[in-house]
């Protein structure tokens, strides 16, 4: 295999058991270099456990985890040098100044002494910390600025792999936009694995989404591919003076597939494999005037709920 073909993150049949509790069981996925991947799941699904194993903070019970082709279990210190990790809740020493803290972390991350100052300035500029926060005590910073310090720390050593555990939690919309831009700027350069509960955020930033539930990967693909896989129907919104029966006859669907909302819009449901290409021409042929017509795109939230619900259904049927 060519060195460029080696995945940035490779997890294979990873399992972690605490006593009688299985935190993750048989988790497998890969992240390519330059790819931004969202890692989603309900609370307690095993996201943070997987990320902590990748960061070398705890060993897995079985399976393998590799960073840039190097086993995390066998060469922990080598994989840590490839990795920038921002843990959940972003723990920071409150009585240090931003610049002091980043300089300390830079030295621990093997940045040569003569380049520490320059690199710290670069990440502070990238994370918008240089103007107002550089000499402030971390304890006096707002939540948004602290998150930026955590992200700046993860970027410090220009690692090949960046893992961010809930980077946008507790941020206001302006701050989220800033972080989104920052993460998007890493596309094509670094492999980024982000866990978040803010699903529109993930959809905006990520190339691919992995959904984990009860310690198992339940979905893995682009948001579009997951929509096709997990959602059984497509929905179109139509605003017209024609009645439900008339629309059903024109489109050849049962009347129960059409519903109307409070704004007078009609929502038409089709099976996901139905041919929806010629819908507009059908209306035109029937002489029905439309003031609005579009396909209602299912959100990532719908995919998330469908994917996680499927596992609940399977596990409860097994009990």
């Amino acid at each position: 295999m060519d060195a460029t073909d080696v995945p940035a993150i490779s997890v294979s049949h990873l399992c972690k058991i605490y006593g009688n509790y299985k935190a993750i069981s048989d988790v497998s996925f890969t992240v390519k270099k330059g790819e931004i991947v969202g890692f989603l799941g309900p609370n307690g699904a095993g996201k943070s456990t997987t990320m902590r194993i990748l960061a070398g903070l705890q060993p897995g019970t079985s399976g393998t985890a590799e960073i840039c082709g190097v086993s995390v279990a066998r060469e922990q210190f080598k994989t840590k040098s490839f990795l920038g990790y921002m843990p959940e809740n972003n723990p920071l020493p409150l009585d240090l100044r931003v610049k002091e803290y980043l300089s300390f972390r830079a030295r621990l991350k093997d940045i040569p002494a003569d380049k520490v100052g320059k690199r710290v300035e670069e990440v502070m500029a990238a994370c918008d910390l240089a103007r107002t926060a550089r000499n402030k005590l971390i304890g006096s910073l707002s939540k948004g600025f602290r998150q930026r310090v955590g992200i700046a720390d993860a970027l410090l050593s220009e690692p090949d792999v960046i893992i961010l555990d809930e980077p946008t939690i507790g941020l206001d919309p302006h701050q989220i936009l800033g972080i989104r831009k920052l993460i998007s700027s890493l596309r094509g350069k670094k492999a980024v694995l982000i866990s978040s509960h803010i699903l529109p955020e993930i959809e905006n930033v990520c190339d691919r989404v992995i959904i984990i539930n009860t310690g198992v990967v339940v979905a893995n693909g682009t948001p579009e591919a997951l929509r096709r896989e997990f959602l059984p129907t497509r929905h179109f919104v139509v605003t017209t003076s024609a009645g439900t029966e008339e629309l059903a006859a024109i489109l050849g669907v049962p009347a129960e597939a059409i519903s109307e909302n409070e704004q007078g819009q009609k929502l038409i449901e089709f099976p996901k494999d139905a041919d929806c290409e010629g819908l507009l021409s059908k209306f035109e042929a029937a002489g029905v005037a439309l003031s609005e017509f579009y396909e209602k795109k299912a959100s990532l939230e719908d995919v998330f709920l469908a994917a996680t619900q499927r596992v609940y259904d399977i596990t409860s049927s097994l009990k």
Partner: protein
Amino acid sequence: MRHFWTMFCHELRLLFISPSTYVAAVVFLTLMGGIYWFAIQQAALAGQQELLPVEIFFQLFWVPLFILVPLITMRSFAEERATGTLAALMTTPTHPLTIVLGKFFAAYVLYVLMWALALLFPVLAWYLLKDFCPDPRLLSLPSLIGGGIFVALSGLLYISVGILASSLTRSMLVASLLTSGALFVLIVMGGLLQLLPLETYESLSWLREPADYLRTFKHLEDFYGGVVDSRPFFLFTLGTVLSLILTTLNIQSKA
């Protein structure tokens, strides 16, 4: 070990900006000043053949230890564990042993510095009193140096035990209580073992020598009496290494 200096300087800096360090310094130096005042009074009342003020001073070395060591060491791992910064530290390519050694030596330097300041009391007392009370007992340099070496040597073990206790818990209060308890056991253990009726039971007679070896005050007396034995060096260094290894294993398994 390439990150040792980074860790050491960082930890030393954190200790110097921590209010608990200054609380420890004030309490420790006040107590040591009081103890030396008491030692001078006792020496003045006693005859020429009795103990020197410095010897009385060193015999009470354990009193401020229960305050100084916990206050210096309790933050080292307990606070980092409670705030989660230990996990962040462990995500860097820094070996856990380097982290432990950085914290240990920073705390040890502070401990030695505090004692160095406390040992200025005998020198100051001699300097201030030398004109109107030219008593040679006021400054006995061999006893002062011997006692100082003992304090520095035993401090290695006491600080390492404090660091170990701090790595066992997230609570600084629990860490300081654990440290005080462990220090009490370490200091009085040898004496307590000697109180056992070792002579009465044949099967326990082998304990006599180890109990004698573990007597902290006997080693102290040897040092300020000018006898520098290799056995206490071995005892304190071995205990220190053991504590630091246990601390490293502990933070490695529970970051």
